[in-house]
């Protein structure tokens, strides 16, 4: 059997409905994810154009030229009349994650900043997006526009998120959640593999009091005493967590990662033979014996369960797969290469 045969759940950036992200395996919908975003949002579609996706429709985004499933946190565009920006003042309070703000825009014009930040940002082309992240000190930022500045955005984030159009008032794109796929018939409680190809963004859940880890994982439905997660923490270290019957089998945050870089990661769990592969290399192993005492029945883009959402994944995903058996080293190398 090949790995396409062996995958019990397989998600690719291909199909979606309102409130659903569809997995290609199984074909009966048992591996589909629940999706929510209580507002519209923009994406770059396969023609390279902005497209507005209405509430609760997942976004397959083509900004990089290839398709990926995009998840972003709640964000507000503080600029008014953002399509063609004019000089304006904006309030820039300190927010719970700090005082980092990011300005982004398209066009050949420039913005000169004064007030809570002093500096400037120049455009490079009609279809090119430029951005600048800075720390504010003060409550009001004055943005003086020169030339053509289009699709502009000022947001309290350490990086630019996707564009949010505004007119006479600020607009908030709400948080995106994607979770609750699979059940114990698709996720083994004894051995298996969780695989994903993903790139995290430098954006963080705004509902959390601190910048949080961006996770993909699977757990028992109401807790994390039996749970397996992988992701990248706020310090840009890979985060690997596997707990069985309340005891850690692997908990590691030592391997460096880069924001925006795609990684192929496989997390194999088997009593006495647990290992993790990144991009074709085995990077962690554990010979600890374990017994999972509750079923792993919930695959999600967070570190949580259907009832609470923490460490929500933020970024782009090309593939997620679950296997109900511990793959061989050769298979894991092939999968992650």
């Amino acid at each position, binding site marked *: *059997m*090949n*790995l*396409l*045969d062996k*995958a019990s759940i*397989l998600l*690719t*950036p*291909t*199909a*979606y*409905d*309102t409130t659903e992200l*569809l997995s*290609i*395996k199984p*074909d009966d*919908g048992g591996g589909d994810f629940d999706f929510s975003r209580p507002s519209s949002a923009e994406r770059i579609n*396969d023609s390279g154009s902005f497209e507005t996706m209405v509430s609760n*429709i997942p976004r*397959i985004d083509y900004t990089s030229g*290839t*398709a990926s499933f995009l998840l972003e946190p709640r964000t507000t565009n503080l600029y008014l009349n953002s399509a063609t920006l004019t000089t304006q003042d904006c309030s820039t309070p300190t927010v719970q994650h700090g005082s980092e703000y990011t300005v982004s825009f398209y066009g050949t014009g420039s913005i000169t900043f004064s007030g809570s930040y002093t500096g400037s940002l120049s455009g490079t082309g009609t279809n090119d997006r430029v951005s600048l992240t800075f720390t504010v000190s003060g409550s009001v930022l004055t943005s003086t526009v020169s030339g053509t500045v289009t699709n502009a955005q000022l947001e309290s984030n350490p990086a630019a998120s996707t564009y949010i159009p505004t007119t006479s008032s600020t607009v908030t794109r709400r948080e995106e959640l994607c979770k609750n796929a699979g059940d114990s018939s698709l996720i083994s409680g004894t051995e298996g593999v969780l695989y994903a190809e993903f790139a995290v963004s430098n954006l963080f859940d705004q509902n959390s009091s601190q910048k949080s880890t961006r996770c993909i994982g699977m757990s028992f439905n109401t807790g994390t005493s039996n749970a397996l997660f992988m992701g990248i923490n706020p310090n840009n270290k890979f985060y690997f967590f596997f707990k069985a019957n309340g005891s850690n089998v692997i908990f590691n945050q030592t391997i460096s990662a880069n924001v925006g870089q795609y990684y192929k990661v496989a997390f194999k769990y088997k009593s006495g033979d647990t290992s993790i592969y990144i991009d074709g290399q085995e990077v962690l192993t554990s010979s600890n014996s374990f017994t999972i005492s509750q079923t792993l029945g919930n695959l999600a883009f967070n570190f949580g369960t259907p009832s609470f959402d923490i460490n929500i994944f933020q970024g782009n995903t*090309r*593939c997620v*797969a679950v296997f109900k058996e511990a793959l061989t080293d050769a*298979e894991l190398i*092939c*999968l992650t290469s």
Partner: protein
Amino acid sequence: MGYGEIYKTSWWGSPIQYGWGGIYYDFTTNDSQIEALLTALQTRAANYENVIGTTEILTELENCT
């Protein structure tokens, strides 16, 4: 490189229906399940796209044996 080694180390001989070498796809003989999976997904999806990219991902998995 020995005779036939190219088939083990590249996509030569493994055309993808909607991607690399697609013009030769109909000349291959295989028992791939990719087309059936795509058809089943399209049937139950209100929104369906990225067929080429998806086929590439599925082909990579199918080539891992």
